[in-house]
């Protein structure tokens, strides 16, 4: 606890006169409303912290709200929360002009809770599109009944995207929400006066399913189904983060064998996710054979998962207290052999891809997210690590089996499509190596322990394939969910996506999008 005590003192020095306490899970700061912005800036600039999540919920008793701004210190592995109870009707100072990573969190809270923010350049028309939803709707307020249809409607076809480019002959080119192939629903407005994209906006939440709202009042088991299904492509990671939050306040010690197996499955999911991203990237440049070969590897991993666990996307495996999967030694041997084979195929494909100049021409110096921009937006996951950021929750806030088995965390500095391609392959290698290490050192014992139903709240996190994901869970003593909030890597990275499009030609839009490897379902929720 040396580092922790040291940081507690350091924070007291940085923020004199503030109430600072150690809750065990995190260090909690309770500044007055007026000092919120200063406190957050101090944490980021003097404390070297990263922004994690912003959770709003109704106060247990009475009117008003509780806001928790979560940060983490990556070198010291400490979670820090700013705890801020506010009265109903209070105006919050926006922290997102200095801390850009919080911007979409604040926009979401303004839209869904109706909490006003001061100092934010544009609010509204975010989750709830002005074209279809009536004004002044706040579905996350407790009294809002999700089962009742909403009366009233939005402005309809009168809605027009904001135009940023003021130039003679400039046009706004819409891409989406329905695409020519299997892409997910979402609208990108590309502004140009000729060939290049000068400005662009991502309009998400066409797939808003209100999962956080419908989770309210449900049993924790039922919300676990939502946690797996709202995104699907990183189902295990989100189930893992959700279960970690639940286990944290239930004081449940997950058995060692389950910890190791959870890490194995999480890494298997990462390999599959990256293989699918690479297949899309090859496909976006019309490299059909490369795409097909990568898809074959993806299908091989899916079949392996289906054969071993009964589900191709690892649904229903991670449960509170451990795992619902107890593999026999023969099954683990199959996993080891197949992983070896998959690694070989992917290494071979990487050699082929980096020796295809027509492919490299399309991704080199394409969709560059400069390191300073990546820092500004606080991007996470492989996209961040391809832009020189050293952000990975497996190392910054180690959990489960990663405490003793820190994987190799590759990094590239260019931030272009080629850097992301190399990074995906490097992460696949690191993950397969870790899976093999864990398989050879797998502890014996049970894979599940009892997880008692208690009232409480906690933050659970994992490094999902696309980056860090934070699940805030608050339950009552009947095992019902009062508040569940998900901070997804998808939302964080889509926020910065338009910066990678600046100056790109139209035909490169798909390539840049594929190289980011982001899920819309994950950010829309």
């Amino acid at each position: 606890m040396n580092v922790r005590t040291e940081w507690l003192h350091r924070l007291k020095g940085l923020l004199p006169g503030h109430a600072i306490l150690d809750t065990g899970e995190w260090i909690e700061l309770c500044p007055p409303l007026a000092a919120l912005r200063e406190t957050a800036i101090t944490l980021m600039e003097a404390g070297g912290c990263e922004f994690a999540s912003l959770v709003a919920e109704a106060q247990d008793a009475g009117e008003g709200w509780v806001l928790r701004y979560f940060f983490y210190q990556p070198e010291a592995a400490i979670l820090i929360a700013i705890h801020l109870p506010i009265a109903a009707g209070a105006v919050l100072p926006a922290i997102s002009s200095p801390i850009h990573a919080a911007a979409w969190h604040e926009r979401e809270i303004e839209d869904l809770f109706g909490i006003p923010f001061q100092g934010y350049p544009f609010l509204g028309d975010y989750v709830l599109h002005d074209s279809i939803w009536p004004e002044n709707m706040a579905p996350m307020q407790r009294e809002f009944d999700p089962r009742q249809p909403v009366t009233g409607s939005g402005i309809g076809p009168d809605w027009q995207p904001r135009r940023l480019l003021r130039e003679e002959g400039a046009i706004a080119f819409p891409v989406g929400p329905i695409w020519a192939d299997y892409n997910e629903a979402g609208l990108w407005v590309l502004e140009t006066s000729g060939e290049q994209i000068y400005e662009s906006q991502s309009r998400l939440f066409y797939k808003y399913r209100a999962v956080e709202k419908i989770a309210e009042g449900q049993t924790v088991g039922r919300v676990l189904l939502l946690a797996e299904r709202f995104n699907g492509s990183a189902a295990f990671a989100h189930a893992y983060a959700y279960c970690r939050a639940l286990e944290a306040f239930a004081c449940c010690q997950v058995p060692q064998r389950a910890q190791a197996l959870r890490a194995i499955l999480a890494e298997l999911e990462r390999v599959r996710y990256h293989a699918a991203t690479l297949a899309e990237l090859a496909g976006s440049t019309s490299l059909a054979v490369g795409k097909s070969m990568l898809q074959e590897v993806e299908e091989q991993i899916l079949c392996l998962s289906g054969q071993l666990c009964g589900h191709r996307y690892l649904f229903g495996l991670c449960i509170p207290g451990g795992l619902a999967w107890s593999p026999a030694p023969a099954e683990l041997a199959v996993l080891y052999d197949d992983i070896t084979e998959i690694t070989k195929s992917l290494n071979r494909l990487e050699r082929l891809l980096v020796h295809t100049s027509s492919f490299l021409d399309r991704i080199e110096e394409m969709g560059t997210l400069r390191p300073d921009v990546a820092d500004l937006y606080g991007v996470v996951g492989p996209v961040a690590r391809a832009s020189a950021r050293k952000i990975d929750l497996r190392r910054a806030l180690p959990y489960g089996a990663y405490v003793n088995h820190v994987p190799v965390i590759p990094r590239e500095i260019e931030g272009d499509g080629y850097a992301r391609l190399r990074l995906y392959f490097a992460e696949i290698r690191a993950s397969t190596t870790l899976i093999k290490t864990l398989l050879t050192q797998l502890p014996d014992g049970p894979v599940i322990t009892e997880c008692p139903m208690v009232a409480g709240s906690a933050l659970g996190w994992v490094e999902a394939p696309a980056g860090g994901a934070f699940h805030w869970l608050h339950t009552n003593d009947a095992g019902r969910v009062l508040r569940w909030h998900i901070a997804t890597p998808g939302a964080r990275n889509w926020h910065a996506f338009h910066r990678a499009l600046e100056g790109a030609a139209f035909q490169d839009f798909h390539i840049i999008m594929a190289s980011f490897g982001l899920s819309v379902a994950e950010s829309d929720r």
Partner: protein
Amino acid sequence: MANWTLTSLVLGTRTLRWPRHEDLPLGAIPARLHGLTDEVVADERPSSGEAPIWVARTATSQGPLPLRFRHSVRVRFVDTGANGALIGELRLIDAPPYNLHRFGIFITASPRDADVLLVAGPVTKAMRGPLLKTYQAMPEPKRVVAIGDEAINGGVYGKNFASAGGVAEVIPVDFIVPGCPPPPAAIIQGLLAAAGQYAVTDPAQSLVKGAPVGDTQ
């Protein structure tokens, strides 16, 4: 410079012979189709070696497209709130192992050119309009295939202010393919049913084991 042509020729034919021959690999048929921890796995694979029947007709189904469409069908996909796992499975239907194109079924970019509308997701409020417009833009005869538990009855989301609770709440549906997510072979079976290449005679003929998630409250 990598020689992709030679590489692919050396690899040879990679397409399964399914559904004519029973060579779907083990993991291609998930034992727990709906992804539930305690899902009842009735029979993993029929002893005769046949693939499971995934697709089912709805009560209001118009049946398959007329005979002349059988080997030339154009499909339009609309995402109305599908999860990433389903999108992942969908992307694999024209990958080498499954190779949708050998059935004469192709994905098209324009609804004007489409005979089958493939829909996934519980139909979110924002996608209701685009879905309706797509359906209305399609020429007759047309069929709708709803894939995934969410598209059938809303799945885990059910029916609420944000989700319509299934495709049938918005447009008429002819075939459903349950599963969360349905595997690529099941999605293809749904398209084959709409094309008339796979016979689903009885609306009650649903051999799908386990109930979609939405029913297990």
